[in-house]
């Protein structure tokens, strides 16, 4: 698993139908502390708290959940300079039906917050991209986002790379 390969040991998640297979992997992995959330913003707090006591954390959510999390991202992660790997399903990306408006606002909001982000379009890139994003977030002490597209999450058999 790419996330474990990057040293991640605590993952906070909120489901999206396109994340379901990935979340099953997270749930079944006994080496990981998995925190299923009710709302994404609390996940930012949980990951911040766990980081302060030595955990390496990731938060997995849809981009709508990223919008839900913005106050915590600004006034906790950015204010205290706390790293966090955000793995965000890029709903409303090119070719993806239903969430076009959410999709159109995702990159502008990340840019406005000064959060560096990378778009994952090929599952084979996952382990390396996750490892590098983790190095960047730890070094910069700021959150870093990986936008994961439907074509990546759709390749179910290959999902173990994430």
């Amino acid at each position: 698993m790419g996330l474990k390969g990057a040293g991640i040991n605590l993952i906070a998640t909120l489901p999206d139908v396109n994340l379901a297979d990935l979340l099953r992997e997270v749930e079944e992995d006994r080496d990981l502390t998995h925190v299923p959330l009710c709302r994404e913003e609390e996940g930012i707090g949980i990951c911040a708290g766990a980081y302060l006591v030595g955990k390496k954390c990731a938060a997995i959510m849809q981009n709508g959940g990223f919008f839900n999390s913005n106050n915590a991202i600004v006034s906790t992660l950015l204010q205290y300079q706390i790293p966090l790997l955000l793995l965000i399903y890029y709903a409303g990306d090119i070719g993806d039906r239903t969430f076009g408006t959410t999709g159109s606002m995702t990159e502008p909001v990340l840019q406005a917050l000064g959060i560096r982000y990378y778009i994952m379009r090929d599952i084979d890139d996952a382990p390396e991209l996750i490892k590098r994003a983790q190095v960047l977030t730890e070094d910069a002490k700021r959150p870093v986002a990986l936008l994961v597209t439907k074509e990546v999450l759709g390749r179910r058999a290959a999902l173990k790379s994430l």
Partner: protein
Amino acid sequence: MKRFDCLKALAAVAGDALVVSSAGAMTLEWNALHPSDSNFRVRTLGLCSSIALGMALGLPRRKVIALDGDGSLLMNLNSLATIARMQPNNLTHIVFDNEVYEASGSKKTATGTGTDLVGVARAAGIKNSLWANSGEAFALAVTSAMKGGELCFIGAKVSTERTQVPPFPIDEVENKYRFIRHIEKTEQIEIFKTNLPASYV
């Protein structure tokens, strides 16, 4: 009840617990009574309980105390459901309920019109949830929480009376560094890793 008196009772039994407190006068009062690098001040309204949960899950053998307010918890009620789901037995969640947004102009919160936060916590799945209705009851509840190994939620109705205390002495980033260095020292773990410059490798 006066919040400051409750905090005094807590300071007497808190030991080396990690204490996460919601922004506002409560944090200043706590820090005046129990100055320590194990204190973490939260700036995002509502996030106190979630940050404390993260710490409790990250260090399951260390006591973690969340000092929350009614306005703060009302903004993140779902954290009670997540705490109940994770059942961290090292977490004590204390809510000082003065029924107003004290730091935001003292407007009434929903607890002032009848919302029962202990009832909400119990219904969310935190079995050991109770109102401490007197100073003695509060002291007893926190003493037993510090001794026991069970997740608990303690509510205390307090007046809006503030105690004169100094300001919080450090900013957010210094709070982070001091807190992490304190964890490294007391848990004997390395959290900040530094690398030699590339020319050395």
